[in-house]
């Protein structure tokens, strides 16, 4: 019994100590940077679970660590879906790594928010000027990030199906017009072989929505925001062109051309013959080509009036603003800018190499090769998503609005509401100045 009392006293003491410790903690704060322990530098990538691309990152790091003795880079890989949450949490705890990758359209937001620092890449093997413009992340005149590759939106179809329905196969020089496209869909639908002739991956979520569908809005003549000043979305997103886009978008569902929400694996559905035309990314080209061989038709995007458009910018690399060893981080980034790595990335991820030199070394991407069309599309049709720190908000509003429109919400009203939300966000944030 005595010992019990003693034990209890000890427990209480422990509790009191814990309380004291906990109350004492708020005061400490580390003002220094993070992401490096001396010359050991941390690198984050979104590639966990994506073995092909991850291996290239590991290879570069291995080569870098072996090639010099000053710095040592340490990798930490995260799954893509939750990568942004991990980065934001780390930033709020001031624990960002020195080197990290970022989805292109988020770069202005991260630069503005103080996550990223501008990088000086002069003297690297591949000059920035060689890159596809959409693979360089800039904000307010400064370069923050660069990517080794880009991706392109494209349409896949079976030549045999198009020919059987006597539908013209479009080319980069002469893409389908809106009327041609609608007529083609009507024919395929009437043919009765396809419940939904068109597959646009409407079952997806997140950044896929603005990436896949805002270029169509732009081809109609609308946009996500007025890019002259980035101070309003009025007219751009709810003007007549935008309403025409919304009406057309919804008509795909009401005409039965497309599922309001497609299945869990759109590309599998296309390959299984469930759909005739698929609006998809160039990353599926290799799979589709392997399965369909010469029957595969790679089609340029439709011209809805203002020319065909696709989204530009994919994953890009930069340096955190809080990095405690900026010299080391820049050394790594410069080192990584070698053509062979551009080649490795594009091969591993099935993406478009960011430079012509790299493209020349990749089967299929040489001028005239079967995938050269993607490079051409990226050069001719790519529009980067609005370069504003407001982009994550705009993206989320657009996703919801487009989904509502597909589900039958009033087009004008939905777009007006989106504009109002975006404008009010711009205003509360004082137009993201500074």
């Amino acid at each position, binding site marked *: *019994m005595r010992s*019990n*009392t003693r*034990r*209890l006293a000890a427990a209480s003491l422990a509790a009191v100590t814990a309380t004291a*410790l*906990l109350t*004492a*903690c*708020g005061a*400490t*704060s*580390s003002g220094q940077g993070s992401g490096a322990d001396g010359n050991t530098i941390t690198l*984050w990538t979104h*590639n*966990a*679970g*994506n*073995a092909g691309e991850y291996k290239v990152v590991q290879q570069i790091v291995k080569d870098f660590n072996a090639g010099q003795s000053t710095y040592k880079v340490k990798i*930490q*890989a995260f*799954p*893509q*879906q*939750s990568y942004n*949450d*991990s980065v934001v*949490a*780390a930033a*709020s*705890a*001031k*624990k960002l790594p020195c080197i990290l990758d970022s989805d292109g359209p988020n770069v202005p937001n991260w630069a503005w928010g103080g996550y990223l620092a501008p990088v000086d890449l002069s003297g690297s093997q591949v000059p920035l000027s060689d890159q596809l413009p959409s693979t360089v992340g800039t904000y307010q005149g400064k370069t923050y990030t660069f990517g080794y590759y880009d991706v392109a939106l494209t349409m896949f179809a079976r030549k045999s199906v198009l020919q059987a329905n006597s539908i013209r196969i479009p080319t980069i020089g002469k893409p389908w017009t809106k009327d041609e496209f609608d007529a083609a869909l009507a024919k395929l639908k009437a043919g009765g072989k396809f419940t939904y002739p068109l597959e646009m991956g409407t079952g997806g979520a997140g950044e896929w929505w603005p990436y896949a569908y805002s270029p169509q809005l732009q081809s109609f003549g609308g946009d996500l925001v007025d890019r002259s000043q980035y101070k309003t979305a009025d007219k751009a997103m709810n003007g007549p062109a935008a309403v025409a886009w919304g009406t057309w978008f919804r008509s795909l569902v009401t005409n039965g051309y497309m599922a309001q929400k497609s*299945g*869990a*694996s759109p590309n*599998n*559905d296309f*390959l*299984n013959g469930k759909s005739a035309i698929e609006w998809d*990314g160039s*990353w599926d080209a290799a*799979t589709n080509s392997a399965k369909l061989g010469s029957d595969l038709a790679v089609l340029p995007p439709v011209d809805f009036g203002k020319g065909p458009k696709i989204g530009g910018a994919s994953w890009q690399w930069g340096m955190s603003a809080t990095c405690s060893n900026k010299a080391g981080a820049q050394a790594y980034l410069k080192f990584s800018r070698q053509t062979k790595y551009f080649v490795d990335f594009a091969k591993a*991820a099935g993406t478009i190499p960011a430079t012509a030199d790299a493209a020349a070394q990749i089967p299929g991407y040489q001028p005239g090769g079967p995938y050269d069309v993607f490079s051409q599309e990226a050069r001719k049709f790519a529009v980067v998503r609005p370069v504003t720190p407001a982009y994550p908000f705009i993206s989320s509003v657009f996703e919801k609005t487009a989904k509502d429109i597909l589900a039958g919400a009033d087009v004008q009203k939905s777009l007006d509401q989106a504009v109002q939300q975006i404008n009010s966000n711009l205003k509360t944030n004082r137009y993201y100045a500074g």
Partner: protein
Amino acid sequence: MATASNPTRGTGLRRVPGVLLRIVLALFFAFPIVFMLISSFKPDQQIFKDLGSIRAFLPVGHVSLANYRGVFDRVPAMRFLMNSIVISAVTVALGIVVNSMAAFALSRMRWPGRRLLLTLIIATLIVPFETFALPMVWWVNKLPWLQFDGSHLVITEGWLDTYRVQILPFVANAFSVFLFHQYFQSIPKELDEAALMDGASWFGVYRRIIMPLSGPAVATVAILTFLPMWNSYLWPLMVVQDEHLRPVMIGIQYFFQLNVSWGQIMAYSTMITVPVLALFLAFQRAFINSIASSGVKG
């Protein structure tokens, strides 16, 4: 063991509808899981082809272990499983001690403010974790910790990238306190009094009398604590940067890369569901049958 209450012992034909009902219900509850299990052996194309028919539940077509092999190529699955087992088990063990002690003091001892405290503790149930996760990241990053660095104790700051940051915030749990409290109230107070008369301390009453009688409550709390720990996702995402410390749910995200493989998702899901099911099977005996031996009736 013989006193499971209200046993309705049917006889002969009268039992048929009851058994049928049980079977239909079993199918109802099991079918999505069977779908998961069966799909884990099929390639993606096959899964999608079979989707609209009964074939989705039958191991037909190209059945293989390829998805399971693929899982190990993508994810350090064993490491994640081990992490989750450690994290969940430690949280459960600490949670049982901490919460039952609090519930004991709240339900069986007299001291000022205990009703108010109980109400306050229950009120904490209301706030969903998602809504304060972000300030919490900032906060745990400021917390100190005592560490032994070989020669002396040092105070370090910041809990990110540790097991403890995945464990300690979830040890105290209002649900568990509430459950223990309810259960303890059903144990006659006379037991305490008799023990105190015999010279036992309050802590002794708790340890030697009340806890041994509380098997079912302990089992319920164990399951109640274990499930959310096993399924925790948002929190480790934010506070664990080191891959070696990640729990199983983060692993699911590894499969949603450009080339989503649903077969592998199903295989991984099966792998992380089986241990929990096994645990429930082990626990449910204690959980449901132990009361009979305890000699306590509400």
